């Protein structure tokens, strides 16, 4: 007996019938077909499990924002990495062919199981952490996948649907993120309520700091300048969202704390307003506006709007007016808000920190309180911290006394001498164009007499539409300063090489080197550089980026 192909799939679940599978090169017994189908579904299930873990890790790194797994999947499987694009083509072809020939889904299973090359399941820089939230997400994802595959198997479409689910594994994780949203908000709500009660009981004065960059440094400066006169608790750097700040309050805000310094990050409009609804800042600080997380915001104006949410709740604002948008914000602020205009350039600002040859000079409303402060710190951030300390009632001479020992944060253009006498400039924590330009200037200054000046970078991310041009511009500037440009990874390779290429008309253009990972880059530095050379590590991407 022979049946039409369409009927094959439909009757596959019925045992004991002899079927002819077209395209398989001959007839198979019903038992053999079952075995094959079971094998294909099992292989796809294994692939779904492996892929699921990968994309769960990406979702975790991307703050569980729905859509992030799919966005990264396109990045990994898409055109950035040629071998993965080829793999993706095979996987899709396998899935399409599985409509007629179930065994083709094995190709999909193998490719998806092996994953995009370079994206490991466990991760090195950012390993998968089995938190309660991730376990919930994994359970929901698994339930979705099992339901789809099991349902399809009963309906006789097991291999095809299993291959489809394998291909769409990142989407499954994204859907799970959406579904778990209400639950997570409820659970986080309990922690936030506890934190709000604790804040009310301990009743510290609250300094909230936001900004596209410089907030972690500024927070450290505030804690240092105020810490002698008052007991200060600063939120840890990685704790800058709702759940993190709730944890910082619940676990770090000891009784008797006078000042709580909260670093507030934002990934979208409304987030800082929400934070301020229970943190209630007494002093709000905006350090800088830049195109960080532009991918999620859409425009820089929306970033300004999101950051300025911090001002509406606070009776006092400290604004670094070197950015014209923050100067405009200072002009616009309501009369009820006391505004400190601080600057790293303008001597007329309320607090002016001006860089001279011998260090920083600090003036408050025209009156100098410190000079020749020899610290490597961005003047604008220091000015903001000084304003906060004065606002909190720290005496100017106490501020001046503590200024020379300001803590320079780790990874903020840290200078050290590595193996073989290479001078290493570590700016791996920076991820914005302004910081990258400043780092290049330092490289130029320190490397004037160096044999080789090398920039190692994977480029910058999360800059939205600006990302391609920002990386090209950075590579062009780097090409004019450096002798070698080492491009790490695939994420921005094309743009960085394009930018470096246009620097070819500058004197002594940089030679370019491409490597896949940070490890390979450091190995290259070890092998090629020695005494008298300078290397700048600019930005570092976690390993969920290609």
């Amino acid at each position, binding site marked *: 007996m022979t049946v039409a192909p369409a009927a094959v799939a439909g009757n596959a679940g019925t045992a004991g019938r002899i079927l002819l599978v077209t395209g398989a090169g001959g007839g198979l017994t019903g038992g053999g077909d079952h075995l094959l189908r079971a094998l294909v579904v099992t292989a796809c299930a294994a692939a779904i499990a492996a892929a699921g873990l990968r994309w769960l890790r990406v979702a975790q790194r991307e703050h569980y924002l729905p859509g992030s797994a799919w966005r990264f999947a396109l990045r990994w499987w898409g055109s950035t990495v040629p071998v993965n694009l080829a793999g993706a083509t095979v996987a899709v072809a396998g899935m399409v062919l599985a409509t007629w020939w179930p065994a083709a889904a094995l190709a999909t299973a193998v490719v998806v199981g092996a994953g995009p090359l370079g994206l490991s399941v466990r991760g090195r820089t950012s390993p998968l952490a089995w*938190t309660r939230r991730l376990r919930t997400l994994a359970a929901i994802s698994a339930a979705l996948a099992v339901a789809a595959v099991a349902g399809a198997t009963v309906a006789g479409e097991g291999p095809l649907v299993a291959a489809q689910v394998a291909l769409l594994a990142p989407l499954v994780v994204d859907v799970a993120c959406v579904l778990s949203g209400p639950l997570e908000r409820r659970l986080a709500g309990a922690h936030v309520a506890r934190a709000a009660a*604790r804040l009310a009981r301990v009743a510290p004065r609250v300094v909230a700091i936001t900004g596209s960059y410089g907030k972690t440094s500024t927070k450290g400066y505030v804690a240092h300048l105020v810490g*002698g*006169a*008052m*007991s200060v608790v600063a939120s*840890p750097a*990685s*704790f800058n969202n709702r759940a993190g700040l709730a*944890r*910082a309050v*619940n*676990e*770090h*805000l*000891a*009784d*008797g704390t*006078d000042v709580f310094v909260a670093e507030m990050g934002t990934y979208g409009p409304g987030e800082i307003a929400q934070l301020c609804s229970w943190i209630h800042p007494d002093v709000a600080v905006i350090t800088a506006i830049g195109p960080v997380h532009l991918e999620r915001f859409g425009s820089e104006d929306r970033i300004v709007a999101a950051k300025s949410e911090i001002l509406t709740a606070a009776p006092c604002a400290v604004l670094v007016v070197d950015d014209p948008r923050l100067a405009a914000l200072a002009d616009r602020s309501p009369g009820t808000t006391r505004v400190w205009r601080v600057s790293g350039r303008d001597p007329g600002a309320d607090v002016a920190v001006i860089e001279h040859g011998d260090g920083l000079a600090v003036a408050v409303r025209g009156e100098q309180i410190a000079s020749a402060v020899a610290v490597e710190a961005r003047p604008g951030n220091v000015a903001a911290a000084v304003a906060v300390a004065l606002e909190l009632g*720290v*005496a100017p001479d*106490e501020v001046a*006394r503590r200024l020379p020992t300001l803590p320079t944060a780790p990874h903020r253009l840290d200078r050290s001498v590595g193996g073989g006498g290479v001078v290493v400039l570590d700016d791996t924590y920076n991820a914005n164009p302004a910081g990258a330009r400043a780092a290049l200037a330092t490289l130029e200054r320190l490397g004037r007499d160096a044999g080789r000046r090398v920039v190692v970078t994977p480029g910058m991310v999360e800059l939205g539409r600006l990302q391609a041009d920002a990386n090209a511009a950075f590579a062009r500037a780097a090409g004019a300063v450096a002798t070698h440009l080492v491009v790490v990874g695939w994420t921005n390779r094309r743009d960085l090489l394009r930018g470096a290429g246009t620097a070819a008309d500058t004197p002594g253009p940089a030679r370019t080197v491409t490597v896949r990972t940070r490890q390979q880059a450091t190995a290259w530095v070890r092998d090629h550089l020695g005494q008298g050379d300078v290397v700048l590590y600019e930005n570092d991407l976690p390993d969920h980026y290609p």
Partner: protein
Amino acid sequence: MNASTARVAVAFGGPSPEHDVSVLTGLQAAHELSRARRDVTALYWSKTAEWFRVDPSLEAADFVEGVPRRAEGLRLVTGGDGAGFVPAAGRMGRARPLAVDAVVNCCHGGPGEDGTLQAALDLAGVAYTGPGVASAALGMDKLSFAGVVHDAGLPALARVLLGPDGAGVDFPGPYIVKPRFGGSSIGIDVVEDLATAVARLGANRQLRRGAVLEPFRPELFDLNIAVRAWPRPELSAVERPLRSASGAEILGYADKYVGGEGMASAPRELPADLPTDVVSSLRDMARRVIDVALVRGVARIDFLSDGRDLFVNEVNTVPGSLARYLWVEPAVPFLDLLDAMVDEALNVPASAHSAAGADGTVLRSAGGIAGKLA
């Protein structure tokens, strides 16, 4: 029951500036007891004063961000049958306190070393190592301790209360300004004159609860010795801690604790290279301090010396790393040190609350309070 069969809980952390050092001490003790296959529980006291049961094999890095993962919330309940460390997740009335025979107190500074925790454990009926309430409170109050030492006829530098008017200071500068309460060297300033010392009162938050003033004598150096009262009064070798090369005027907090595994890895000369008569007079004084300061567990007594004269400076009733690194002569292994502390906790109660004498006589003769007030 003895130390090798007792169910021991190591307590560490706490709402104290020395929270982090205490985590190191606590983990050292917990790891040592685990290595010896003792029945050990780790009790982490958070900076916000919450209690958690954590895995005794955790490392310092697990506490960097706050409460480590998989920590189980506890409540310290005082009074009655259900008293002790009770799991917070259990339903009210159902949860039984953890089975703990003795707590090894590794909490430095703040309420873990000033009598507060000791009082709570006394009320909860939990045995513990280290100082009792009175000893802890005395050791934490630099002014009271100096007075007690002085009255016992032991040599000490002048130490006076520093008030906002600077009155009562009858010795010339330079001075050391110290917080009256608090452990370690946190908040200590060296100043040239009295006016600057008084000005520090406003600028240094550590001095808010009171400050004491001492003469600053740059030629003096620190000498430390560990002591214990159980199983018999015993003294360790004498240590001379070394300051970092940065030319600091006094032995600072960073010298002692930053960049190693707590006190155990700080730079030192051990045993200190001193004339034998100086060593023996230091040991005599230390033996006296055991009684004067009500030493229980292991304490570290800090002296100042110019190489000839000795001054009793302060007592640390819960010293960093439990002063285990000082026991080289005689050599006392860390486990033996811990075992002796646990045995002492089991055999010598830190407190003896008594209601004897309150037999109702007073109440019976009192009549109606309301009637008297009417």
